[in-house]
């Protein structure tokens, strides 16, 4: 079971894909990202004049319009960062588990981070950004380990069905625990709830700055594992034959993904399906080589989450729809599409 569709001809095609095509896509993607970034600053529930937008970009907050734009700037940065983290984490997880349904949301990793954060808030008074991030990363790691262990028990290892099921079950269990922890605590209920739905709305540069070191390490570790993920894609035995230390390579790559999910969840709440959709889209564009796929997934993830955030601001004017809800509404049909495409024995 490989991440690619088992079709020998397309496999041959993808490996022979010219670098030129990839660079072209990279250019397109960069253009889209710039356009989305501009839109994210310009579009919002309040219409703001261009002059005010430019003034706000210069640091001025003299009137309401400029103030609104000033709030959109950290929000845009956060959406770009979190999207990139989730897209990259999804690609790494699909590589590590060799499973097309792997996603930090579906596998329960984001819920694990959430539960850890909520428990930290409720019982240990861990309210500062940094402590929340540490706790979230711990929770994400434990959840990832647990779900992977449960999903790979028995015959055939971690098949898509077993992994997705154990992820969904673990998510459900964590969600119940979160409700049980939060309900008696009216003091934290409101903030937990707004954080939990998954929002980038309340972003501040302070919070982004706190998460940045963790995200940076996560990005570096994940991107550096591209080569070993390429070997792993050939199967554990071939990878070992190529001189890859399979368990260590897998562990390092997974650590990178966990860092990314934990930090992203701590600052924006659990956001599902970005990590699922993005790598699949990228594979269609540029093929299966992880050295290209991983950076592309990061960029596409950033674009997708920013687009979802903009969409949430447009459709429900004058209020907003949280970005986590939009990604679920876009991502779940995609999930279904992937499930439909798989042959039964591969599930």
């Amino acid at each position, binding site marked *: 079971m490989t991440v690619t569709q088992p079709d020998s001809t397309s496999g041959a095609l993808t490996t022979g894909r010219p670098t030129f095509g990839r660079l072209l896509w990279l250019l397109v993607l960069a253009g889209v990202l710039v356009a989305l970034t501009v839109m994210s600053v310009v579009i919002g529930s309040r219409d703001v004049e261009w002059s005010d937008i430019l003034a706000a970009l210069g640091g001025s907050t003299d009137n309401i319009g400029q103030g609104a734009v000033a709030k959109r700037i950290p929000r845009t940065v956060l959406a770009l960062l979190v999207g990139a983290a989730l897209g990259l984490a999804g690609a790494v997880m699909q590589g590590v588990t060799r499973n097309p*349904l792997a996603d930090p949301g579906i596998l329960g990793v984001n819920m694990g981070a959430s539960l850890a954060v909520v428990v930290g808030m409720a019982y240990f008074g861990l309210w500062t950004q940094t402590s929340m991030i540490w706790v979230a990363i711990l929770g994400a790691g434990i959840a990832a380990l647990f779900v992977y262990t*449960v*999903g790979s*028990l*028995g*015959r055939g290892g971690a098949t*898509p*069905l*077993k992994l*997705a*099921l*154990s992820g*969904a*079950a*673990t998510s*459900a*269990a*964590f*969600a*119940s*625990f979160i*409700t*049980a922890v*939060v*309900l*008696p605590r*009216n003091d934290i*209920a409101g903030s937990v*709830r707004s954080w939990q*739905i998954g929002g980038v709305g309340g972003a501040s540069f302070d919070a982004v700055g706190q998460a940045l070191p963790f995200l940076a390490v996560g990005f570096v570790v994940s991107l550096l594992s591209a080569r070993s993920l390429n070997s792993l894609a050939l199967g554990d035995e071939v990878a070992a034959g190529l001189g890859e230390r399979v368990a260590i390579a897998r562990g390092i790559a997974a650590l990178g993904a966990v860092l990314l999910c934990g930090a992203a969840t701590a600052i924006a709440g659990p956001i*599902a*399906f970005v990590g699922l959709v993005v790598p699949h889209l990228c594979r269609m564009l540029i093929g299966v080589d992880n050295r290209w796929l991983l950076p592309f997934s990061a960029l596409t993830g950033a674009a997708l989450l920013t687009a979802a955030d903009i969409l949430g601001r447009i459709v429900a004017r004058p*209020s907003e*729809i*949280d970005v*986590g*809800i939009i990604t*679920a*509404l876009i991502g*779940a*049909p995609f*999930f*279904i599409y992937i*499930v*439909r495409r*798989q042959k*039964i024995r591969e*599930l």
Partner: protein
Amino acid sequence: MTATLDTSTSGTDTVAANRVRRGRRRRGIIAVLVVLVAAAFAASLMFGKTFYPPSDVMRVILGEDVPGASFTVGTLRIPRTVLAVVAGICFGLGGVTFQTMLRNPLASPDIIGISSGASAAAAFAIIVLSLGGSQVSAVAIVAGLAVAVLIYALSFRNGVAGTRLILIGIGIAAMLDSLTSYLLSTAATWDLQETTRWLTGSLNGTTWTATVPVLVALAVFGPVLLGQTRNLSMLQLGDDTAQALGVRVERTRIVLIIAAVGLIAFATAAAGPIAFVAFLSGPIAARIVGPGTSLVVPAALVGALLVLVADFCGQYAFGTRYPVGVVTGVLGAPYLVYLIIRSNRSGGSL
């Protein structure tokens, strides 16, 4: 059938004897479950913040005016407890029907998104359309059926495979739950207790207006399901075998789906999708009753017992009042994980 028809073939003899023993055992277990449900029902009426002796409760039920008890028992506890029993039965029946029909314990309506659909529709009807009462139930049942049809259609590719249906159902459920979250976030007053009703189920603030439609639904759909018990167990043998045994497969399946979704949707419109009751009742009943007999009635009773006990614990066992769905969720989700671990280990495909 008696066990002593034929002495020459001891094989048949044992089979027949076993069958009689199983039948007796099953009836005994059902009787025990009925007694347990009745006991839990009575206890829920008597105990609480204030204890009322059985005599007071009886007098309230008979319509006499008892100071204090008339309000606490008559207005608060009786509708709530009746809804607990009826909703539990509905979820148990609906769950076990789907699980048996699709031959997979994971194919219960609360896992494959049917409850989520009914719940999202109920929240939509109340928050956006400002409907109430039976209109909410009507919207919920339409949505529940639509989701059932959608999942079935989406998982159809050279026949419906159980695994594909479950995964697609999980995807649909994720989508619908996020829709519910959004609807709740737009509601004028946001109240966590009220929110949990549409996400995990709650019996708080139950009145007769909520309870009566569910009672009616059970009275209508319950007998339909019970009448199909025999066909249901034949469907379990596979479509071809069932057909050969004289079951009109498609017709039976449609009747079963409508009745099961009806029960789930009405119960959900009143109490929310009480987490995992539909999923848990069947497997627990199977554990108790053992293989080879119909699970429909035992599962209904287990469902009622689960909701009654979980609601009672949620109200009084902890410092806070937990909605019933939180209690069943905390119990049910780990059981789901355990079920997956066990089946993965034994190499089965669930």
